[in-house]
């Protein structure tokens, strides 16, 4: 019994284009040059027998001689003085903080190689994002500067100090302004340093601006409740979540934390309690959050304001003007339904908006106040301190510089020459400043324009701290000595302000011992072990909204009108690249976008019908011309679910001075961002025209096709409550045929298996990066991805399906809303796909050299040194999870940005071999971790406990969608999960007996998914 729903991964698959059909027949994208050989140099030329024998003889001789070479001499160089805590072969773990989230850093003989979850992290302890996972590679980035730079020449710190101090004194004497420009600084010690600096040089002001800004929310809260803060959102307390273009599972404020909260109401544990939250998403482009929503309603950017007004009217019974959505009947109906449901869920609902417009956010505040969110799902008393930027202050800075009032400017973790919307105005104004200092680790776009680049170390080489929430503090501690001649920005500022304590470590420690540690009753050493301290959270107060909304609504309507021209352009942060600060990180560049599955590029996304209407084909180059005249050529991606009349472009690409890997990848979209009403706006308009030409995007989307087999199983909550096995196909099993009826292999010891909860997986992709880092998986680059040669052991397949599959289906209220005749209306399922470790593995039987064989604990082993590269196994794998090494990625200058470099190779995990050319590889179920876990238990002479061994992907997953363990232990998490009635095995009908069970996707929609019997 299976659903008759049709799933497809891309439009070419849905439409079954001839190209797709042709490509799909082949296992590998590149045709093998057999025909060339046969036609040209092969059969037509005659190779005389003697030549053949000569070649044979020479070959044999050469091989023999080659084998006779002496074994190379290996040198072994021990420490001169071994640090007490280092034992070669045993990793050390240090707590630290990455961008405000506590992490655990794994180091081997002094080099950090992996970021893991800090179990003391509290609200952040569930997982890490892709950026955090990839951040170890940033440390070993060869594009960084190796010494401080003064006037474009390498210099020493003493010369740098003399120069900067001299200039500062001049600035001081002239009485002109000094500005420190940074992105949001949530480090209490760094803030104290800036304050110290300001007291030495009183004309100093600290300007915080974020490339992707949250000023709108902060200003709105100041306006509505007198609190200029970013609130703490509690998605775990919300039974009903309504999001207007806020990508809260991905990029919005704190994606990982929100994911954990959100999933706690939707995962298998929650479903066992018959409980699941409901999530509506109104948005323009298809975001990660949108793909996870129960109901996703595409709206234009210009419709967001009216939609919120309509919702406000529906909840409060008011009749504010401008609530009409004349061209979107679907959204109108959905808003009515949402309004009614919000009223039913008062105090258990949450409305969020991704807009950075103050008026819009004030309206959202009004809605949230009306449904009683304050004090429950929104907490204004323990605010979030991740973002504190003020867009207007930065705009004013440009004016100040233009007026010649600024004598010195310092850039700390900010790069306005790249990411300011009016970068040109900024760079022009910058020339009028006498002293320009950048604290960057490389000569980036801004640093390149500065007199001095006081190079800063990576966070893994630094001391510091973070205060992410009120009362929640974490420490940054170095895990390696600075590799280059760098110095922390804070230390430079301390030195330049002649502070009493100039060593930043001492400064941080003093600061903690004076202010934070006494209040939480911990010592510095305890802090260095825990990484995190928090004081008891204040009680979240309820806030009522008492303002008049007239002016607000007028402003919203005006902005909405302004957007109603040309194509409405939505610029957004993509999940791999975010704001572009890590653009030189090859792991992130090669991480496929969770929705479009595009790597190494940004693009302009249009709805299928829109593209058809404009006469564009996929991958056509389109000139996108913004309101300010800025124009770029971007390849077109046809994106189902994109609202008609809109286009989306990702930020973070198009950097030109970031380094080898990231330079000139994609186009910069920051100049499209507009600044009005005091905040940056990511909704704007653009004119499109065909640029001529075509550029194929490196998409992993349809690389692995399933020929329309039934591999996704889903159901609705309603059906699930009636029958937990609904949609899983478990009621009617296929008859299975078994080749090995007599030869049964018992798994007597452990049986390593996995359960993956499709209802928990949001598709964010941090597991992919975690897997890459853990298993030394090479980055192959754009061209190779185009040839379907990406090496990822773990991928996340994204399937589209129509919300309304079959005409004449029983139409419920919900169905009515969901009814659509075109591709705008799609729902999405994310399915992590990795080696299934089948007990009857088809790959094993076809290997002529027994390089891949089964183990007694249920794993499918891959002996690389035995593999001769026939690739039969990949051909025979029904899951298409085997990856072939087409090159020696670690010894090939074409892949210079990652493995092929002595310095970046320091990131490799010494417990995992790097694979050679001509060898097949695939997920090993982190066998190095299994073996290490077993050994620890053996050494301690105890039984292995459930949870002793964690997979890299499992560890990184904030949603806990991946559960790993021993099936033979009936009390293990995974054994329990696999007993769930939602469990199904992908392609179980072919009886390969996979070791990974998937739990059905459950959608909280009112329709009943009818199951049709499979013949």
């Amino acid at each position: 019994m299976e659903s008759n729903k049709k799933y497809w991964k891309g439009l070419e698959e849905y439409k079954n284009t001839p190209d797709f059909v042709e490509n799909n027949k082949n296992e590998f994208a590149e045709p093998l040059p057999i025909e060339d050989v046969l036609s040209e140099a092969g059969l037509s030329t005659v190779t005389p027998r003697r030549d053949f024998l000569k070649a044979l003889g020479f070959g044999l001789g050469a091989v023999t001689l080659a084998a006779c070479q002496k074994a190379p001499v290996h040198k072994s160089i021990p420490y001169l003085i071994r640090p007490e805590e280092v034992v070669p072969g045993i990793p050390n773990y240090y707590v630290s903080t990455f961008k405000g989230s506590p992490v655990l850093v794994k180091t081997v003989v002094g080099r950090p190689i992996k970021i893991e979850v800090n179990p003391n992290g509290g609200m952040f302890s569930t997982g890490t994002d892709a950026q955090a996972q990839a951040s170890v590679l940033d440390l070993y980035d060869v594009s960084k500067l190796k010494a401080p730079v003064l006037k474009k020449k390498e210099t020493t710190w003493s010369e740098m100090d003399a120069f900067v101090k001299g200039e500062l004194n001049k600035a001081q004497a002239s009485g002109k302004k000094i500005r420190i420009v940074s992105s949001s600084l949530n480090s209490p010690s760094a803030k104290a340093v800036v304050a110290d600096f300001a007291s030495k040089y009183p004309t100093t002001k600290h300007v915080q601006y974020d490339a992707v800004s949250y000023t709108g929310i902060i200003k709105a809260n100041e306006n509505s409740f007198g609190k200029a803060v970013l609130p703490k959102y509690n998605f775990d307390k919300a039974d009903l979540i309504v999001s207007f273009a806020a990508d809260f599972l991905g990029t919005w404020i704190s994606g990982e934390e929100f994911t954990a909260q959100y999933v706690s109401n939707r995962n298998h544990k929650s479903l066992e309690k018959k409980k699941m939250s409901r999530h509506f998403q109104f948005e323009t482009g298809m975001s990660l959050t949108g793909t996870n929503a129960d109901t996703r309603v595409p709206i234009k950017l210009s419709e967001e304001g009216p939609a919120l007004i309509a919702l406000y009217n529906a909840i409060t019974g008011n009749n504010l003007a401008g609530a009409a959505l004349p061209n979107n009947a679907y959204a109108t109906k959905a808003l009515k339904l949402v309004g009614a449901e919000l009223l039913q869920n008062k105090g258990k609902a949450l409305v969020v908006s991704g807009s950075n417009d103050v008026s819009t956010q004030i309206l959202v505040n009004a809605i949230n106040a009306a449904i009683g969110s304050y004090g429950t799902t929104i907490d204004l008393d323990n605010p979030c301190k991740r973002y504190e930027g003020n867009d207007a202050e930065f705009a004013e800075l440009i004016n100040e510089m233009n007026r010649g009032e600024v004598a010195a400017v310092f850039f700390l973790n900010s790069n306005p020459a790249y990411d300011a919307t009016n970068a040109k105005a900024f760079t022009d104004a910058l020339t009028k400043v006498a002293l320009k200092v950048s604290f960057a680790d490389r000569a980036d776009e801004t640093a390149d324009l500065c007199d001095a680049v006081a190079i800063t170390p990576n966070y893994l080489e630094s001391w510091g701290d973070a205060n992410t929430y009120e009362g929640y503090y974490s420490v940054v501690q170095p895990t390696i000595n600075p590799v280059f001649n760098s110095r922390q920005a804070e230390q430079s500022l301390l030195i330049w302000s002649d502070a009493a304590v100039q060593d930043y470590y001492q400064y941080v420690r003093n600061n903690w011992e004076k202010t934070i540690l006494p209040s939480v009753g911990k010592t510095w050493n305890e802090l260095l072990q825990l990484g995190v301290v928090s004081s008891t959270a204040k009680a979240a107060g309820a806030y009522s909204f008492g303002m008049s909304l007239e002016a607000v609504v007028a402003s919203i309507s005006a902005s909405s009108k302004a957007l109603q021209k040309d194509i409405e352009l939505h610029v957004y942060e993509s999940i791999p690249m975010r704001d572009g600060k890590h653009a030189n990180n090859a792991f992130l560049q090669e991480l496929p976008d969770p929705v479009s599955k595009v790597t190494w590029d940004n693009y302009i996304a249009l709805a299928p019908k829109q593209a058809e209407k404009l006469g564009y084909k996929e991958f056509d180059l389109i000139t996108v011309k913004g309101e300010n005249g800025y124009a770029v050529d971007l390849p077109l991606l046809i994106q189902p679910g994109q609202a008609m009349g809109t286009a989306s472009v990702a930020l973070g690409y198009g950097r030109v001075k970031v380094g080898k890997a990231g330079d000139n990848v994609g186009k910069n979209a920051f100049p499209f961002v507009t600044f009005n009403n005091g905040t940056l706006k990511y909704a704007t308009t653009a004119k499109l025209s065909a640029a001529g030409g075509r550029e194929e995007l490196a998409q992993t989307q349809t690389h692995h096709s399933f020929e329309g087999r039934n591999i996704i199983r889903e159901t609705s909550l309603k059906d699930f409550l009636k029958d937990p096995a609904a949609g899983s196909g478990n009621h009617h099993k296929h008859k299975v045929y078994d080749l090995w009826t007599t030869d049964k292999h018992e798994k007597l010891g452990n049986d390593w298996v996995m359960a993956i909860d499709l209802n928990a997986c949001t598709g964010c992709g941090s597991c992919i990066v975690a897997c890459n880092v853990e298993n030394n998986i090479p980055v192959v680059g754009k061209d190779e991805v185009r040839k379907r040669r990406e090496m990822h052991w773990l991928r996340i397949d994204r399937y589209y399906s129509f919300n309304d599959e079959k005409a004449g289906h029983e139409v419920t209220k919900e169905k009515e809303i969901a009814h659509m005749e075109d591709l705008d209306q799609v729902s999405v399922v994310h399915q992590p796909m990795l080696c299934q470790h089948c007990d009857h593995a088809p790959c094993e039987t076809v290997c002529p050299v027994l390089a891949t064989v089964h183990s007694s604990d249920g794993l499918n082993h891959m002996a690389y040194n035995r593999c001769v590269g026939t690739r039969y196994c990949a051909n025979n794998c029904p899951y298409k999870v085997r990856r072939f090494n087409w090159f020696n990625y670690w010894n090939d200058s074409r892949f210079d940005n990652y493995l092929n470099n002595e310095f970046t190779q320091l990131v490799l995990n010494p417990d995992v071999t790097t694979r050679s050319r001509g060898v097949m590889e695939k997920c090993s179920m982190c066998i190095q971790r299994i073996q290490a876990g077993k050994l620890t238990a053996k050494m301690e002479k105890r039984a292995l406990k459930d949870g002793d061994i964690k997979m890299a992907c499992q560890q990184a997953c904030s949603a806990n969608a991946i559960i790993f363990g021993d099936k033979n232990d009936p009390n293990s998490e995974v054994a329990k999960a696999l007993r769930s009635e939602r469990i199904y095995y992908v392609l179980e009908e072919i009886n390969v007996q996979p070791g990974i069970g998937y739990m059905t996707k459950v959608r909280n929609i009112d329709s009943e998914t009818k199951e049709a019997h499979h013949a």
Partner: protein
Amino acid sequence: MRNISLNFKKVWKSAFVFAAFSFLILSGAQAQDLVEGKTLFKDKCASCHNLATNSTGPALTPKMNELDEAYLIPWIKNNLALTASGNKQAIEASKFSPTEMKAFPTLTDDQIKSIIAYAKVGEPKKEVAAGEAAVDEGASALSIVGIIAIIILSIIVLIVLGRAVKMLERLILQKQGIEIVEEESVSLTVGVGRLFKNKKFVFFTVLCLVVVLGSFGWMGMWETGVHTGYKPTQPIKFSHELHAGINQIDCQYCHTGPFKSKNATIPSLNVCMNCHKNVQAVQEDGSVSPEIQKIYNAIGYDPATQTYDKTKEKPIEWVRVHNLPDFAYFNHSQHVVVGEAAIRKEKGLKPTDPVCFACHGPVNTMEELEQHSPLTMKWCINCHKDADISDKKDDAFYTNVIKAHEKIKKGEKITPALLGGLECGKCHY
């Protein structure tokens, strides 16, 4: 002139007699003291003191000669008490190093006097014979090569001379006008030619050749990449025989890794310095032994001033003796901790031998370390097949696993292979 020399003789004689007399009286007692003193010195003092040079404590020979017993005895017994009592000399002496000297309240005055006596005299100079013996030993290998070379040379000389003689003979005969009858060399080639026409002979020869070359080839192929006996020259002539054998230092004192990590770890130089700050094997000319000097050079240590200079550090590049390919994962702790009992049994080690000897061989007899085991996969597998790990039955980790297996393998011994120890992925990942 004569008178003077006579007088001088007289004086010299009497002096000699007096000296001999006094030596006779003293020597018996003194020899006894020196032996005891030496033992005590080695036991109590040598960890911090050298005789001739400063180390943790000052050089003893000059100090003992300079200071007086009345002060030295209470100082050695309990220097802290002496310092505390306000003895100025003691306070001054305690400033030598921040490391406090240990108190020795159990030593008797006589014992201390013995130590002082020994320390004053110092170590008797090394006997020359020992030095010569060492030189001989060093030359022995050379001499064999030399002898062979001489033999070969003389053979060549003989042949050349023989030819020359023949030539000369001919010349003489020719001059004398005697006809030379050439030897019939044709017969030999004809004979060989006939032999080669004999099919049986040819077949037999070819067969022999094939068998001999084939077996050499076969053996050679099995030995390809196998480096048993690999004994590279190391940058420092470190002798395991001396350290692990004669001095009986436990393996783990230097190799701290194997019982907790996958790596055995080559000791860092601070471990060497624990002993070699004092043990300097001083040469006759008073300089530190050149091999120990290499440690000092690497770590930037100056024995004269006892200071370290970070800028002079230069790590030692040892040559790896045991090389496993990168695709094979080997973990020492897995074997020497978890598998110790089974390995001891399998390899028949003496209970007194460290478990390391199972694979590394009798390291305590190796002057230069060599690879004892072949380190081939076959060698690994054989042990995994044979080793008996039944002793693990009471180990909580194995209890369930072994119980399950026993059901099907009743009575057979339990080996790593039975528990999956032969599967590829257990070592190759």
